[in-house]
């Protein structure tokens, strides 16, 4: 039985037995190159659910505060390894109610970065297939077809994923994926090195260029599963105007820094914000650095242990910061 079959079966059962009001998984969007979140209420419709390396959406977004409709709905959802860490982060702080959730864990061996693919073709991608495990076949509107290795076109986070298997779930869709040796290997932040080696002035100029293109659409914070006050955001406050509503590189960067600080200790670098940004701002540059420093300061990885408290919610008398 494939993982997809497991997901469909779990969803259908949960719906039939009325354990959930609706089940959130992934389904095909307007063509086979786009997967989108699926909300299933009828057990007979569970067979529209799919699982493949295009299922990038972190569905935990849809259970954060003020997202579920109705607010007290009992919700079933699928989580990948990285998604589960955002769920654990919410549970650690009691920001979601465990009793209203039914979680299907989906062990994951990597998600395709559709944007990497887009940049390889001048015509629009209209079809993506997976002829065998590890292979991606892309077809464009102009009729061009190319077969690629999945590893070459995965999201940056996937290459060094430490938690491919969900850390919290009620059921698991199929066998677990092979885990890296977490005792032996430290988290990998080599993607940051190039930026970190730049001089201060070059960093500022680069950030200015990057953040000048932000359009303040707020997709990044709205999709962020651990950004729980998304709909009452300080970044939107006009009176007092804590963060300017003007759109410019400084204001935009300030707004991103606010988001970053507000999810510090909760954000596991799931990458949902990165993928949602319509103008492709590399938001991970801030979040990865934040997680690197948090790991360096506390040896802490967000959203890993259910009974742990996020580092900024507690303190230790023995902390060695400051002079």
């Amino acid at each position, binding site marked *: 039985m494939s993982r997809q079959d497991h997901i469909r079966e779990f969803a259908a059962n949960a719906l039939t037995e009325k354990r959930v009001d609706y089940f959130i998984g992934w389904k095909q969007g307007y063509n086979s190159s786009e997967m989108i979140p699926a909300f299933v209420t009828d057990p007979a419709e569970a067979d529209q659910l799919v699982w493949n390396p295009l299922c990038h959406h972190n569905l935990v977004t849809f259970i954060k505060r003020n997202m579920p409709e109705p607010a007290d709905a009992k919700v079933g959802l699928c989580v990948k390894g990285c998604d589960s860490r955002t769920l654990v982060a919410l549970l650690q702080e009691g920001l979601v109610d465990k009793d209203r959730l039914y979680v299907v864990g989906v062990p994951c061996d990597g998600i395709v970065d559709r944007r990497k693919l887009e*940049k390889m073709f001048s015509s629009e991608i209209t079809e993506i297939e997976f002829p065998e495990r590890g292979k991606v076949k892309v077809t464009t509107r102009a009729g061009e077809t190319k077969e690629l290795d999945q590893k070459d076109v995965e999201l940056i986070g996937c290459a060094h994923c430490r938690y491919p298997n969900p850390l919290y779930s009620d059921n698991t869709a199929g066998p677990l994926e092979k885990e890296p040796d977490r005792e032996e290997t430290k988290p990998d932040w080599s993607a940051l090195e190039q930026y970190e080696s730049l001089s201060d002035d070059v960093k500022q100029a680069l950030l200015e260029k990057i953040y000048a293109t932000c359009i303040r659409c707020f997709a990044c914070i709205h999709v962020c599963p651990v950004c729980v006050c998304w709909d009452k955001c300080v970044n939107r406050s006009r009176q007092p105007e804590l963060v300017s509503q*003007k759109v410019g590189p400084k204001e935009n960067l300030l707004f991103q820094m606010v988001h970053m600080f507000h999810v510090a200790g909760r954000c596991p670098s799931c990458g949902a914000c990165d993928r949602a940004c319509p103008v492709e701002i590399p938001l991970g540059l801030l979040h990865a650095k934040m997680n690197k420093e948090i790991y360096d300061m506390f040896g802490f990885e967000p959203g890993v242990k259910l009974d742990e408290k996020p580092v900024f919610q507690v303190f230790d008398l023995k902390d060695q910061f400051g002079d």
Partner: protein
Amino acid sequence: MASKYLKSEQLPAFLESLAKNARVVAPFKRDGVTQYEPWQSGKDVELDVLLAKQSPKEYVFLQTETYLKFGYEMAPVPEGAEGEDAVPYETVKVDPQNEAPKQVIFGLRPCDVRGFVQMDQVFGGYGGFYFDPLYNARREATTLLAVTCREPRSTCFCTSVGGCPSSREGADVLFTQIEGGFFVEPITDKGEAIAEAAGAALTDPTDTQATEANEAKLASATKVDPAFDLEGVRDALHDNIADKRWADLAMRCVSCGTCTYVCPSCYCFSINDSIVETKGDRYRCWDNCFNPVYTEETSGHNPRAKKMNRFRNRFSHKFWYYPDKYDSLLCSGCGRCIANCPTRIDIREVIRVMGAPKEAPAASGAVAASAAAAAAVAAAADTTTEGKEA
């Protein structure tokens, strides 16, 4: 005015000549993302990637526009004043801003142009409503050089909303890519002035080139997939306002606002003051109906408190309230909102479902829509069409 021909190699020289009198804006690819940006000598215009990520509306309807600077200062005490008159008091000095430099936007698509045409209604004083001097000054100073789409995307549906990939509506000049260059059709006085100024860069086209351009236009129109039948959509939206399916469709929306900011015709904004010490700016900046606090009132009451209410508003506004008030749709079928939405909410699907009369099966729209597409093609071929709303 007679049509012209522009060789591909002459394009940089042509843009260079425009840049002498105006700022030139065109689509460029930077780090793999195509966007409208000010043109600089040596940059290659990107015409192969269809549709820049964002519409060019930000060049006319600025995302942040400071329209007033103000400052507090002490009023001078008149000489010889006594008693109360001699008490110094503070006044506010107001300095309105309204800059509208000349600009030419090259390489925008007919749906981008139509975005301006539709937005003109709301800012242009249509029906005795407010005439916005800022917008109109910029609009007046802007010349639109549209390019026929060669390879419409799978998300394009201009033909279903009365447009077409070679529509002349609202454009000052229409360029159509043919063998070795462009077939150039000046449409308005502004367009003719541009063509005249270009001088020798533009040559007279041969008959073959004219035929080729016409064929290219017909070919591209047939590549746009019909999405829905516009007939009856307005009434159906009205009838379906309380329909439960709105909530179902809105489920995967995250209420972000990407769709509105990439859209060529969404025009909502808010107004803010920003003050440092005694000096401040009053500016307007884009806002959108998906912003959870967009309709929040001072009392704390929010008439569109739920995601579903906001979701319903966007589509109903485009296909029902706006047409009612301004006699124009508020969607040009560019498909940007579909391709850029983080969860790919599909406006075509929304209209197919919610814009279908209650009793009729939702799918019937597509059939009639092909008839609409055929009509659009015919309209495109007829180069004299003034481009009136279907």
